[in-house]
């Protein structure tokens, strides 16, 4: 190292950085280019294309068509029902599980916690394949039932239940992750006090655990719903009957060669998702009891 060029510790280049306002913007330039070029411009193109008619003029005809089409309304309904039920099931399983994982601190709890994060790293298509593997036509469960009883049963992979299982699978780690973070910050004393005062477990959940976890439950719900609304891989692998909106978007583009229709559906899906997210955000911010 060269000879010491001693500087006072609070000189402009080394002092508490948070206070500095002047920014060497070239550092952010690559990111700004990516955001503008790969996000803002393409999304803008998507929106504009959905409003431009075949004659080049402005039109909302495509939105009117989609919103009056029985097929697309059904897809929106199926997508919403799948998202809501899989989210509720994930919350039901994962809130008590997360409370246990965070409070027990045993090796068993730590192993279980790692196991529960595994679905996070799996793409949707692999999750869809898991459902086929377990409940498909020659799935593990139907084949095992055949070996025991002689005839295959529970071949539900390509039904609504199969889709629901896939959606639940990818929502579990998302809910656990968010709730665990919040449980770590809640008051153990309040739960213990309620128990000591003789409150039933149900009562403790209803009046202590759930209210204190309310913001976390809201963000877990939002994350879970947003993932489910946008899920494409899982649905594509299991899509032999039920259509969800992301599948319709893909079909409009690749099979029907109607990018404008695909853009319209994408925008409607984004509007539905954002509305749900904003609504749940409001609920989460609501006053605590």
């Amino acid at each position, binding site marked *: 190292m060269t000879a010491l060029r001693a500087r006072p510790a609070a000189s402009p280049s080394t002092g508490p950085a948070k206070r500095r306002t002047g920014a060497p913007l070239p*550092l952010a330039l690559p990111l700004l280019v*990516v955001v503008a070029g790969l996000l803002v411009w393409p999304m803008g193109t998507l929106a504009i294309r959905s409003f431009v008619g075949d004659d080049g003029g402005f039109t909302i005809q495509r939105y009117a068509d989609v919103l009056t089409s029985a097929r697309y309304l059904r897809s929106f309904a199926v997508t919403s029902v799948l998202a809501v039920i899989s989210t509720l099931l994930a919350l039901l399983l994962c809130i008590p599980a997360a409370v246990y994982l965070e409070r027990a601190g045993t090796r068993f709890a730590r192993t279980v916690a790692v196991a529960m994060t595994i679905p*996070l790293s799996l793409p949707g298509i692999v999750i869809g394949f898991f459902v086929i593997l377990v409940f498909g036509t020659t799935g593990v469960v139907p084949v095992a039932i055949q070996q025991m009883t002689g005839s295959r049963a529970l071949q539900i992979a390509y039904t609504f239940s199969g889709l629901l299982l896939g959606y639940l699978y990818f929502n579990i780690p998302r809910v656990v992750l968010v709730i665990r973070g919040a449980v770590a910050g809640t008051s153990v004393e309040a739960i213990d006090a309620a128990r000591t005062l003789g409150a039933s477990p149900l009562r403790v959940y209803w009046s202590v655990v759930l209210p204190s976890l309310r913001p976390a439950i809201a963000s877990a719900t939002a994350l879970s719903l947003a993932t489910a609304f946008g899920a494409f891989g899982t649905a594509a692998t299991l899509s032999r009957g039920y259509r969800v909106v992301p599948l319709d978007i893909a079909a409009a583009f690749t099979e029907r060669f109607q990018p404008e229709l695909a853009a319209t559906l994408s925008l409607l899906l984004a509007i539905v998702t954002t509305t749900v997210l904003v609504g749940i955000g409001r609920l989460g911010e609501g006053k605590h009891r």
Partner: protein
Amino acid sequence: MSTNILEPDATPLEQGDVVAVAATAAPNDPILRIGRWLAAVTALICLAPIPLVLAVATTRVWQQGFWAGGFTLEWLANGWQRIAPNFAFSLRIAVLVLIIDLLIGLPAAWLIARRRFPGRRALQALSTVPIAIPGIALALGLILAYPTWKAGGWLLIAGHVLYTLPFMLGALTPTLGRRDLIELEAVAATLGASFPARLLTVTLPQIRTSLLAATIMVVTLSLGEFNVSFFLYTVMDTPLPVELYSGYITMRLEVAAATTVWFLALVVPAAIALERLGGAKVGQA
């Protein structure tokens, strides 16, 4: 918590064991008891498919049951031959995406962590993009905006960069903002270390865990990315997940399971390493 004493400590994650533990060593607190049951059931749901994929992939004639016709490695060998070219292609894409993410993400994360400037909040909000906008819509926007880029494979890389960059920023920004790191850099500066010297001998070594986590995250996300890739790949070069998908639709279950085994062998160790490094990621499904 007094109930902790009653809990067995070491428990291998076997189906039978989990049930046995929950049934025999129930602590007095029903809240933890219910929680442990549900945690065990949920973990079982998460883990069960993995041994089953292995079983199907090593069974000669799966339709007739577990290991009917005997144990075989033939499907695994076939599966590897089938996906090897796609794996090589996806790995090349992942490495390129990682390099681009680092070049863009490191300076931007540093700026977001250390400086106040207009638009800083907006840049931070970027981290929610992969969750808020469905991958299929991102891809559709890209291909409508740049229809001519698809042929060279650059659109696929662009899509992956857009999808993974927020995770890179999310992993690096908090570490770069650490108080102790800022002070260490200040000490090095007062001792006369130039900016490149501080970067190489102080900053990068200090954030190496986060860098490693970000690297694993970006590479595994890119290797497994399907929703964005589905619109953007060219038939000349098929990414690994797209090849897996076409196997799921067209191939017999044993081969589909075998290709999945190879993919899991790649991704699950990375996921566990990531959990050890303390950073779990939330992508799309």
